[in-house]
């Protein structure tokens, strides 16, 4: 575990490297430990891939005789040291399983054919393999609710577009390098779009606005245009 400052109001706790399920388990365990009984002066906790970042108010963190960064580092280290074996085991397996319905191809997946050509397979095979995958949410970000999913079959790895599209439709399911994910909002985007979901991944009126959390397991399921149209 290494700690480093992100400016004067945040500390980044690195728990490993790369996109790795075991590292993610440690990230989730620490995130949960920090959420359980929030430390005074902490305003935000952000897990992503191999790090947990804790945002804090230096004014509240400035206790007698201790500098804000030293204090938050000590508190986080103490908290990490108290994570029990049970919690470690719990977070070693995925959290909730969320199924995401997808209409693959056509106008909803304008890059499906190009992805298929790049991978040297039929479009139907891309759809089959994308659905067969067992994905894990490694990070949420880029825009509210955007999920970065690990676990994409190496045969489906496709580099991002050199020039991003200026506008990607909300719900678009894409492949970016070794990852797959869903665009929750209309944004510019460089991933290869293979389908679209009617599911809202970002719900601004919900107290927990992102549908997915880091550590959730995601399955994709192909649906028809009719089902997409009827989705509520």
């Amino acid at each position, binding site marked *: 575990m290494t700690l*480093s*400052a*992100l*400016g*004067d*109001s*945040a500390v*980044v706790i*690195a728990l490993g*490297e*790369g*996109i790795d399920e075991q590292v993610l388990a440690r990230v989730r365990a620490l*995130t949960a430990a920090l959420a359980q009984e929030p430390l005074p002066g902490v*305003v*935000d*906790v*952000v*897990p*992503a*891939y*191999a*790090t947990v*970042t804790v*945002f804090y108010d*230096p*004014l509240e963190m*400035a206790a007698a005789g201790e*500098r*804000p*960064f030293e204090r938050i580092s000590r508190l986080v280290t103490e908290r990490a040291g108290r994570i029990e074996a049970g919690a470690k085991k719990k977070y070693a397996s995925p959290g909730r399983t969320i199924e995401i319905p997808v209409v693959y191809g056509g106008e909803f997946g304008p890059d499906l054919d190009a992805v298929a050509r790049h991978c040297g397979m039929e479009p139907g095979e891309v759809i089959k393999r994308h659905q067969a995958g067992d994905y894990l949410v490694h*990070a*949420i*970000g*880029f*825009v*509210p*609710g*955007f999920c*970065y999913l690990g676990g994409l079959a190496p045969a489906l790895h496709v580099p991002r577009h050199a020039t991003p599209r200026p506008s990607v439709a909300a719900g678009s399911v894409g492949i970016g390098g070794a990852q797959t994910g869903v665009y929750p*909002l209309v*944004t510019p985007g460089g991933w290869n779009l293979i389908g679209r979901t009617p599911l809202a991944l*970002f719900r*601004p*009126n919900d107290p*927990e*606005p*992102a549908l997915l*959390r*880091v550590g959730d397991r995601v399955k994709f399921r192909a649906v028809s245009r009719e089902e997409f149209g009827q989705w509520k």
Partner: protein
Amino acid sequence: MEITIHRAGMLSTVQDLGRRGHRAAGVPLSGAMDRFALRVGNLLVGNEQGAAAIETTLMGPEVEFSADAVVAVTGATFDGVPAWQPFFVRAGERLRLGNPVKGCRGYLVVAGGIQVPPALGSRSTFVRAGLGGLEGRALREGDHLPAGESPRRLAPHWRIDERILPRYAAAATVRVVRGPQADEFGGRLAKSEFRVLPQSDRMGVRLGGSRLLRIGRADEMVSAAVAPGTVQVPPDGLPIVLMADAQTIGGYPQAANVIGVDLPIIAQARPGDRLRFEEIPLTEAQQLFLARERVLAMLQQGLKEKVVAE
């Protein structure tokens, strides 16, 4: 009370001090680009420091108040408009903020605050996700903004101590603390002069004039959290200082982080302005942070007798 927008200006939005606690869902902090100017503006009219106000960008709006009000304009300064000082506007009176004489972002603060409904705990507008503010968007001509009813009395003949005001300048030096990949740029950040590019927005202030190129071939990085103030460097070498609406995580190398008390200088830089960076230790950055908070606490105390609720 209602504020009618007669001219919207270039980009006018409702902002407070932002949305806390939702970064894990990918929701950025948002809020005022120049947090100091908003906080002081609120204190000047007798509000809580985090009340919502109108943030203007370069060309300001023209607005009308439906009732007598005490207002203040902080941040950017405008010709013919009192700066960093509360003043009265009458019902039906129009206030026009044209092109700022100095700075880029003004804060039009009204006693009682702008009262749009909060979204995820904040009234800040985050246009990209349609969150907060008035219908999640920038203000337009013909909009009516609800504002609080708070009659205030002002003690005559006083001015804010100008020594506490930031020095916005067309050629500024901004203090930073080291970023994790600082070494990969061989200390070039502090040795170069940059210019603010016109593509800058509330997500990030884009810099040109010098390029920061990585020494040697470095590995691709896995994304981690970023913050307002993070100086990230994409492969083209043109740094971006992330600002209020920045994404919550990023995977570009980070050369530095602008310290909190100097972020307003970046927020007030206009396209074409020159910027330099100076590296300071984290300990000093946090001392400056605490000193700034003491100044604001003293100002709040001092204004108690100057701005009084009726």
